[in-house]
């Protein structure tokens, strides 16, 4: 209790109960605490000064749980413009570039699997998802909203989990939709190809059925759900990095580095001595993972499907997310 004397004040020693003892003259309601229901805006009942029953709200209250946090985060993510902008631009880039490249390539022999040109748009589109993932967390730090959020929900892990879930599902659905639309465009415009004689016997020849270029089921899966998952995971990694760095520009720059640097660095490693490093960087470059899902891997292993790399990305994301989770609970906001 207070170490200081409340000298001269009428308040007697504080009892354990949360309400002030009522002096003679004022009658506390029976079972004070539940009994008194001053509606909002009613002027004070009882007379000042003296014993006042503790306030009790007439508004029904529920014990908060993850469901509340999820609903709240969904409201948050759909009510800021950055969500509309980033996802809108992502959609336009993926589908727009997909359409343009399909129109441009149609009629000729492309020498690529049917759905693979979807990669070009998505390489740009993924930057939007990364940006949104970062902003979901860092915009709260930038504006001070995080204090409001953590005051409303002091279980910080729950907040992070809710943010991650809502963002991941949204990013996954939107990216998969954009990729699926692009894949449909590609399959509609690019399947009329004739296999040139010099390509007979190559791997691509297997994809020709009845004189038409087709995509197998697993190719479809990789170019739609696989690509959607991959980009949504990258976004989730961005969200975790944002929660670690708590700074929009810093986190976006970091993620750009993660996505682009391995490939850029590999480009300048020409020497024989660096061959191993170069191969490693190319193979584990996030862009290679995405390219492999579209069946145009950057490595010599032309059978790569991209799924193992997607699994690797999931593991990395999980580790960074766990670090963000642990640090969020430790740090002051």
């Amino acid at each position: 209790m207070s170490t200081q004397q409340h000298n001269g004040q009428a308040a007697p020693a504080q009892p354990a109960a949360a309400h002030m003892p009522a002096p003679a003259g004022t009658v506390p309601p029976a079972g004070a605490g539940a009994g008194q229901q001053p509606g909002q805006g009613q002027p004070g009942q009882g007379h000042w000064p003296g014993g006042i029953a503790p306030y009790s709200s007439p508004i029904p209250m529920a014990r908060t749980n993850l469901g509340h946090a999820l609903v709240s985060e969904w409201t948050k993510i759909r009510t800021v413009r950055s969500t509309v902008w980033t996802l809108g631009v992502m959609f336009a880039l993926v589908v727009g570039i997909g359409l343009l490249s399909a129109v441009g390539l149609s009629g000729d022999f492309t020498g690529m699997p049917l759905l693979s040109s979807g990669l070009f748009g998505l390489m740009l589109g993924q930057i939007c998802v990364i940006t949104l993932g970062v902003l979901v967390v860092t915009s709260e730090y930038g504006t001070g909203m995080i204090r409001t959020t953590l005051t409303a929900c002091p279980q910080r892990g729950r907040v992070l989990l809710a943010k991650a879930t809502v963002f991941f599902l949204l990013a996954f659905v939107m990216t998969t939709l954009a990729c699926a639309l692009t894949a449909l465009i590609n399959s509609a415009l690019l399947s009329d190809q004739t296999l040139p004689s010099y390509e007979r016997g190559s791997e691509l020849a297997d994809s020709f059925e009845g004189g038409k270029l087709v995509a197998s089921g697993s190719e479809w899966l990789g170019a739609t759900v696989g690509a959607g998952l991959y980009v949504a995971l990258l976004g989730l990694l961005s969200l975790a990095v944002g929660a670690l760095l708590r700074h929009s520009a810093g986190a976006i720059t970091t993620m750009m580095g993660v996505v682009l640097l391995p490939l850029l660095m590999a480009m300048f490693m020409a020497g024989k001595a660096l061959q191993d490093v170069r191969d490693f960087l190319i193979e584990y470059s996030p862009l290679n993972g995405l390219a492999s899902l579209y069946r145009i891997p950057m490595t010599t292993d032309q059978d790569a499907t991209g799924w193992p790399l997607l699994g690797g990305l999931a593991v990395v994301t999980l580790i960074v997310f766990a670090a963000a989770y642990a640090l969020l609970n430790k740090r002051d906001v």
Partner: protein
Amino acid sequence: MIELRDLTKRYGDKTAVDGLSFTVRPGTVTGFLGPNGAGKSTTMRMVLGLDAPTRGDVRIEGKHYGELKEPLNSIGALLEAKGVHGGRSAYNHLLCMAQSNGIPERRVGEVLEMVGLHDVARKRPKGFSLGMGQRLGIASALLGDPRILMFDEPVNGLDPEGIHWIRTLMQHLAREGRTVFVSSHLMSEMAQTAEHLIVIGQGKLLADTSMSQFIAENSRTHVRVRTPEPQRLLDVLTTEGLRPAAGAQGALEVDGGDAARIGELAAAHRIVLHELSPQRASLEEAFMRLTAQSVEYHGHAPGGVQAPPEGAQVAPGAPQPPPEGPQAPPGGTQAPPGAPQAPPPGGQQAPPPGDPQGPPPEGPGWGEDWQRRRRR
């Protein structure tokens, strides 16, 4: 009820909050006063569990903040930093807060109405004025209809009407049996709102007392006498055991003197008086005297000589020339020796101790007048 026990927060080797122990009780407005950098906001952040204390703890209704089942129903807070995403409309901001605590959506409309922001509910707070932002912060504090309310510098940026509104609002909330804890660096503001007072300086507790007690203990009273024969009067008063001192413009100031007795003495010795007036030092001065040792950021007035500050002055001790430092002269007046002393500003006088309530509550219509003005 908020209980702090030995609450301490250190940032590196700097102690922001140093062993604070006090209790904020329901049913009254408790003022939390201290100069800039005294640790008020840090303390409030620790109450909300945003910052972890280095030592000690703080409990809300006996629980740590993180253990609260429905936090917004237990405590609503307005923090100094706005805590609003500028791009999300006022309505949606409150809605996402409400949803995180399972508060029904209709409550959002209610609190917007209450603070008078319903006309701009769909606008983005980015374009809000300081006062509107403050009202939105108050709306979010009231959202859960909480038993405890905590306001950090609520009158910042509000116009006089808004200040009056928040004052009556806080008193009204306290009268409903809620705990109201409000910080300020303005003593004059607190004197009109708070009934109980907690003063800190450099993170340490300086006073924990009722407002009337603080006023009684800290208001320095003196009698100002003006006469064409100051030397004679000086002799007479000194002989009678009073301690007159030279005041502004040739006046004499008698500390702790009784105006009637001085008048009688002057009459008995046939000394003409031009002025005989009891003076009461402002609460602001009392507050400065209390915190003089612990002011962190001293400004230095270019002239070195300045009248005692008016209500809005923030940096106590600032007017004093450097050699004196923060130490107040024994007399307690803030003016340097020999400097002319202006009379204490009338507006900063304490309200009569018998009326701790200040202006009567407005009841349900808080903010109504503000709304009317907006519609015009």
